[in-house]
């Protein structure tokens, strides 16, 4: 039983395996030090959520507005632990985080200044189906929005991300603090499904809105970590969900297919947004003062190495 065929294959396999392991995996790793006369951005790998390359406030915007072309893009998550881990390890040199992220300061990241104003008024705004949000619901949500500000949001994010507190608990603590009740308003006012994007801040906001609505008698259910806007917004249009906490400028640019209408003025941005939403039976309520924009962050070492302060610094040669 001399199966030479089999032995030949076996040796081939061993040979191939040596070859395969020798051709190690490419990618990752810090670029070489010293100036090479090329734009800094072209020496950096950008990390962010998988939809980043197509988003006007993400890689696409960096390309169009700042003229930046990165060496490569690594799909990770939405400003979450995978992106931060990749930054720390040097798998990426610049990553998308969220401006209200509590751990930016804690981890010593440097957020590059948006000196050309790519980001606009990304104020938190409830987006929902007009049929599901009766006037008392709308009044309540607007009332919450009038009280919510960015430092509140950052503090709540820190509790979730660093202290690992539960978003539901953080939300009910916040509602208690601003004097909105979460129970005792009766029941049977109607069903509302509140959804959140796939990052913890969204879960917190969804819980804040949802628990407040329960407090005035709505029957609230949740679909948290549903996905990104590409998933959540169609679900709202279809009626699978009734409400989600959106971000004004990004919602607008998503709905108008990146026409570039968003401005730093939240009220004007929301007005334009409602212009598009009305036709779909949807409505955006009053924006809050709390903002959360895309923030492009680098490690302190990277910032020092190339003297980075503004995003436009990335276009310089280094």
């Amino acid at each position, binding site marked *: 039983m001399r199966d030479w065929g089999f032995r030949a294959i076996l040796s081939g396999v061993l040979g191939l395996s040596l070859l395969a392991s020798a051709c190690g995996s490419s990618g990752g790793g810090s670029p070489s030090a010293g100036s090479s006369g090329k734009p800094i951005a072209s020496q950096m790998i950008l990390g962010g959520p998988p939809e980043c390359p197509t988003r006007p406030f993400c890689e696409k915007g960096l390309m169009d507005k700042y003229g930046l072309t990165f060496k490569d893009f690594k799909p990770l998550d939405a400003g979450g*632990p995978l992106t931060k881990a990749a930054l720390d390890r040097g798998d990426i040199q610049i990553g998308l985080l969220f401006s209200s992220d509590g751990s930016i300061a804690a981890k010593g990241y440097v957020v590059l200044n948006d000196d050309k104003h790519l980001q606009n008024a990304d104020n938190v705004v409830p987006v929902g189906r007009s049929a599901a949000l009766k006037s008392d619901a709308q009044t309540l949500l607007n009332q919450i929005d009038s009280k919510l500000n960015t430092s509140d949001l950052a503090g709540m994010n820190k509790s979730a991300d660093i202290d*690992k507190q539960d978003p539901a608990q953080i939300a009910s603590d916040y509602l208690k603090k601003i004097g909105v009740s979460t129970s005792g308003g009766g029941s049977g006012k109607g069903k509302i499904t509140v959804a959140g994007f796939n990052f*913890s801040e969204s879960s917190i906001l969804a819980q804040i809105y949802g628990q407040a609505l329960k407090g005035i008698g709505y029957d609230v259910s949740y679909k948290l970590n549903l*996905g990104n806007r590409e998933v959540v917004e169609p679900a709202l249009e279809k009626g699978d969900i009734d409400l989600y906490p959106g971000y004004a400028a990004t919602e607008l640019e998503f709905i108008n297919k990146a026409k570039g209408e968003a401005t730093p003025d939240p009220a004007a941005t929301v007005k334009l947004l409602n212009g598009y939403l009305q036709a779909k039976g949807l409505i955006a309520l009053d924006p809050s003062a709390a903002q959360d924009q895309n923030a492009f962050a680098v490690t302190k070492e990277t910032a020092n190495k190339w003297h980075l302060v503004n995003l436009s610094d990335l276009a310089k040669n280094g």
Partner: protein
Amino acid sequence: MLRLDATDPWIRWDWLGHHTDVIWQALVQHIQLTGIAVLGGLAIATPVGLLVWRWRALRNPVLSVAGILYTIPSLALFALLVPFTGLTVVTAEIGLVSYTILILVRNIVVGLDGVPAEIREAATGMGYRPAKRLLTIDIPLALPVIVAGVRLATVTTIGLVTVTALLGEGGLGQLILAGLIQDFKTPLVVGLAGSVVLAVAADLLLAGAQRLATPWRSSR
């Protein structure tokens, strides 16, 4: 290489205590998804299996194709369905049922094949009509292999249900996904351990059922 995060222990019992309802719902959803897949799969695989067993010509082609289809990774199968059925329970169940059908058809055919020819001939000789012989001789004797198939299908499905978390379903897989998204070990550990315990429990339960159903066989 090992990252040990002192601020996030492997299990935070206080989190467990506060989330018993979340964990329970995840468990219930997991069992529901598995049950529908296995029972639905059995319902479809039984007539198909019987057909393939009766018509020899179908045997090799059907089982070969089934064997090859079985190698399609679950995420890919779900992905083939998403453009048509969306990120829904329907997509999850179609995918899960497909895998159970592949396993069960194979085991039904192999099990029925394993019934000794002499016994079947003796039954025919005693005047058993085909339908009666099928019900009282063939299927009972094929039962060990069939139940083994149900065991395998159940344990496999319990594992695959966790992948449906990427479709918005997931059962205990939702806890695993939450652990990844929030960089939080407790739900990850709970989801993983729960899934393993569920699979082992189901396997033991079905092994017991297998022994009960065939008392004349020596247990393995």
